């Protein structure tokens, strides 16, 4: 038979938090994608498919200049970053919600997932180019 979850009321809070976060992330990234696309179409520019050209867009000097001039590429970059960060934020919010509920087991389980994400960032910084 089905076991009763130890606290269904508080678990509903986790669902609500996760739902709101996913919607917020989706809306925010879509808005930036649409602004960036419209600007890019109004001011057509050439781009390359080479890895060097793409990496050039990541440089702080290029980003700063882009922010100052309203470069469409910056809007698209912000949209992409927001999109990638939404699941990360979802994991962090879940840890907090499980913590508030006093659900230690799932604080540990979810923290392991966050740990793997942090490991990915560390690998990205130090190892993989």
């Amino acid at each position, binding site marked *: *038979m*089905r*076991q009763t*979850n*130890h606290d269904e009321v508080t*678990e509903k809070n*986790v*669902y609500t938090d*996760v*739902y709101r976060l*996913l919607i917020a992330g*989706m809306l925010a*990234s*879509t808005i930036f*994608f*649409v602004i*960036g*696309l419209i600007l*890019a*179409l109004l001011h*057509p*520019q050439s*781009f*390359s*498919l080479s*890895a060097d050209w*793409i990496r050039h*867009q*990541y440089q702080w000097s290029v980003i700063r200049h882009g922010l100052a001039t309203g470069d469409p*590429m910056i809007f*698209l*970059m912000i*949209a*992409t*970053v927001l*999109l*990638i*960060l*939404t*699941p*990360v934020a*979802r*994991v962090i919010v*879940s840890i907090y919600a499980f913590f508030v509920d006093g659900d230690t*087991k*799932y604080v540990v*389980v*979810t923290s*392991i*997932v966050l740990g*793997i*994400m942090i*490991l*990915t*960032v560390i*690998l*990205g*910084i130090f190892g*993989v*180019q």
Partner: protein
Amino acid sequence: MNYSLSFVFSLLGMACVAGFFGALLGVGGGIFVVPALALAFHLPIKIAVAASIVSVIATSNAGGSAYVEQHISNLRLAMFLEIFTTGGALVGAVLALFFNDWTISLIFSLLLAYLTYVSFSTRNLDDKRIAENTFTNVKQDRICAYLQLNGSYHDVAAGKDVAYVVTGAPAGMGIAALAGLASGLLGVGGGVLKVSALNRYMNVPMKVAVGTSKLMIGVTAAVGAILFFMAGLIHFMIVAPIAIGTTIGATIGTTVMNRLRSAVLKLIFSGLLAYLSYAMFAKALELAFAIHLPYAGR
């Protein structure tokens, strides 16, 4: 290349179709986006994989949120299996950075061949099998019992609450890791592997399996996306129309899926998947040995 209106709309249109077909077949858009970008738009495979993985997050956010709102996704189960999908995705994404383009094309071709088989062999399965299942009458394994993995959801079609007890943790963990590996290496969601594992081995009703898998895909894909982003493989100009297009396509596809699902539909998709498998194999031969087999878009 110039960022023209026609280029943006051709990418957007392709992504819409890919997202739509993906949703109809019960897989993400990635399985169609990567071959389309590589074969029709002639993008380097790694840029195609990186663009696809970002669009996979977009469709997961959109689809996953709907399932979470209706409490169909099982959050605890998702969190537990995400340990293995993200671990697999990290290994897969690192491999993607080191593998040659032709190796990735070849592995993608094999995945498509497998999906052709799955789509063809399950074309006559219908919801009756799921309706006949009893989801509470199983003995839990120790891991699932310790993690209190069970739940219930309201099935609108059946008009009742369906309770279930989760079991089969070892099989679920193994397949989740494999799905994560495929996600990181090939830029797909890996949903088809996860859904079948949850439903067949872990005693999870089909709708919960789909909703839980959809939610897990975002976190899994984020790991690959973070690594590709930091390695400088994400092309924002290409990602934008793909992410928007697949989300629109997948949303429409999910809405009409229940009305359209049929054996004939799966048969048609089997043919499409078989062709894409062949075309990606041809692409791999071309990249590795300069052997030119004919395929559309070459």
